[in-house]
């Protein structure tokens, strides 16, 4: 009988000691690392979200499934690419699930919500796609890192390529929304610096796809070339309309790589031949690193990886490097951020580093559409860095 009482008191003592806080540091080292994935799992950007998720998990898997020596527990939130729920969804992961790191997202509007939460709570945030300038410019933060691109970065590289080919007068066309405007800024910067002149800027509301009037205008201006920023369904329609209006082959079309990324199927390819784009990746990149990545990805997920999968994969690599440097203790922020800032990412796209504002310093490839592929013709801009204007880090 006495033994039972003894047992009860000793158990109570143990429970008391555990909850008194003395054991907590030891527990934090052994506890699973809580990784939050906030990505679009439904809606227009589903495919992008899935690719990023796949790529990220694959990077962790290749490292033995542990980050900084700790097991990983995933928490998923579908952000639906819905900007109005951005803050709420980010808080679900940060406040409710208490994640150590938040990976997300695709849509720039939603990213604004995540960014707000990241700045307020100080949670580590790795952006695997959204290219909004503010995140690594005026509103940059020590705890926010990007593994993709800035909106202006992909179009900035076009300028020199076009002028080198003798196209000195160009028309710029895009959707009038944040990403389109920022891509336009980047293009203007690169093109004018190379000595080109933008003779007219055309735009239409996002995601309007009635291009006919603007194509007629382009035909009457007769510029040396046209540069554009479109993506997804709108991009595929723009390419088709451009060809149907008889402009393809007469006035060369250039664009940010998202114009042709993942869209070249049997239907679109004939209209897209010869379109030149710049992007930080191409599926046809002939490097050993890219080959092994593509093979492993195809084996694991039974589908071909795209640029988004690479960005997700690199988000994983960056986290591994950072967490590895601090032995899995993500609360050691100073050392963690220093390690991530100094990281060299051995990516399928080629090695890249972090700018002071936490945006990739990376090569931009010049690609041309041949058949159903974006064939790499060379590097359009070596180690291109976003200006990071207005960021006071570093």
């Amino acid at each position: 009988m006495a033994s039972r009482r003894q047992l009860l008191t000793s158990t109570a003592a143990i429970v008391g000691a555990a909850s008194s806080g003395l054991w907590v540091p030891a527990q934090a080292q052994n506890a699973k690392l809580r990784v939050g994935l906030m990505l679009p799992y439904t809606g227009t950007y589903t495919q992008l979200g899935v690719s990023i998720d796949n790529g990220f998990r694959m990077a962790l898997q290749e490292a033995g499934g542990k980050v900084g020596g700790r097991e990983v527990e995933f928490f998923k939130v579908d952000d639906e690419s819905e900007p109005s729920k951005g803050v709420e969804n980010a808080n679900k992961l940060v406040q409710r699930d208490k994640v150590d790191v938040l990976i997300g997202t695709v849509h720039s509007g939603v990213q604004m919500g995540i960014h707000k939460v990241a700045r307020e709570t100080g949670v580590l945030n790795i952006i695997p796609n959204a290219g909004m300038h503010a995140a690594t410019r005026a509103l940059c933060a020590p705890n926010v890192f990007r593994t993709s691109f800035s909106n202006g970065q992909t179009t900035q590289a076009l300028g020199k390529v076009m002028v080198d080919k003798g196209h000195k007068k160009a028309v710029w066309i895009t959707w009038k929304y944040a990403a389109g405007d920022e891509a336009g800024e980047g293009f203007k910067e690169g093109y004018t610096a190379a000595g080109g002149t933008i003779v007219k800027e055309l735009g239409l509301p996002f995601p309007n796809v009635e291009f006919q009037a603007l194509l007629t205008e382009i035909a009457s201006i007769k510029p040396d070339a046209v540069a554009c920023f479109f993506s997804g369904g709108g991009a595929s329609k723009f390419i088709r309309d451009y060809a149907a209006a008889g402009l393809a082959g007469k006035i060369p079309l250039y664009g940010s790589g998202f114009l042709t990324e993942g869209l070249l199927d049997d239907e679109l390819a004939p209209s897209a031949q010869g379109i030149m784009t710049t992007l930080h990746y191409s599926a046809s990149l002939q490097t050993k690193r890219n080959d092994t990545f593509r093979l492993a990805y195809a084996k694991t997920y039974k589908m071909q990886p795209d640029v988004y999968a690479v960005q997700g994969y690199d988000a994983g690599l960056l986290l591994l490097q950072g967490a590895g440097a601090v032995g899995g203790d993500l609360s050691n922020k100073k050392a963690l951020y220093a390690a991530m800032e100094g990281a060299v990412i051995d990516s399928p796209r080629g090695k890249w580093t972090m700018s002071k504002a936490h945006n990739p310093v990376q090569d931009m490839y010049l690609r041309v559409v041949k058949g159903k592929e974006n064939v790499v013709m060379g590097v359009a801009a070596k180690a291109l860095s976003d200006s990071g204007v207005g960021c006071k880090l570093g």
Partner: protein
Amino acid sequence: MDLANILIQLLNSVQYGLLLFLLAAGLTLIFGIMGVVNLAHGSFYMLGAYLAYSLTNTWGNLALAVVVGTLISVTIGWLLEKLLFKHFYHRSHLDQVLLTFGLIYLFEELRSMLWGDDVHSVAVPAVLDWSIHLTDTLSYPAYRLFMLVVCSALALGLWLLISQTKLGMKIRAGAFNSDMAQAMGVNIVRLHSLVFAMGVALATLGGMLIAPLSSVYPYMGSQVLIMCFVVVVIGGIGSVRGALIAALLVGLVDTFGKVLLPQFASMLVYVLMALVLLLKPEGLFKQ
């Protein structure tokens, strides 16, 4: 801008305007006769485009796809009217908006399950896959001209149907005063089914015809729906003639606005709507 260019842009305006009319006509008819605000109208447009994609892939023939696709969509429209819409004719507009808003989501989910979330394209039929050279840099795709002809024919047919036939008389009577029409022996229940099916048919037909020009993509209906509402509001709710004039007007303002005032392009159509609402709150042709 030289004369040739102005003429080409006029052609663009008319072509865009007629397509808008095709979509807005169904919306305005359903509202004018049944008093239903149908937010799911854009979903039928999307359904049409996806049907065109699936059916042309199966049979390799757009014409056949259009015929079968229209039959399928009219059946779906007829069923929806019988099972759902019928019960909402006398409910408040808020209830109708909630119902049809829910339908948008339902259709999007079904689309996602059946076709996935990818962007697809539909080939232009081989007979129409050529262009007419207009200037040394610009060609006009034959399919666009074909659309122009088809849309004009449909607009004319709709006008004849409504103004010249007995059925049209009943439709007009039903729109004017449905209780009185019923008292005079018009089978209003059947009339409602018919008009609803017609509206759905016009929307899906629009979606199928535009599929080869446009791409087929998720949420394509929502974007078009807003433009349709602008057309219906400008034209006067319930007026088919108003919808035609308004659609052409919107086509004109949108086309020339994009070219002449690119920085205000996204606003101009709505400015036009605001002006019309200010001067003629009932729209240009209130019935």
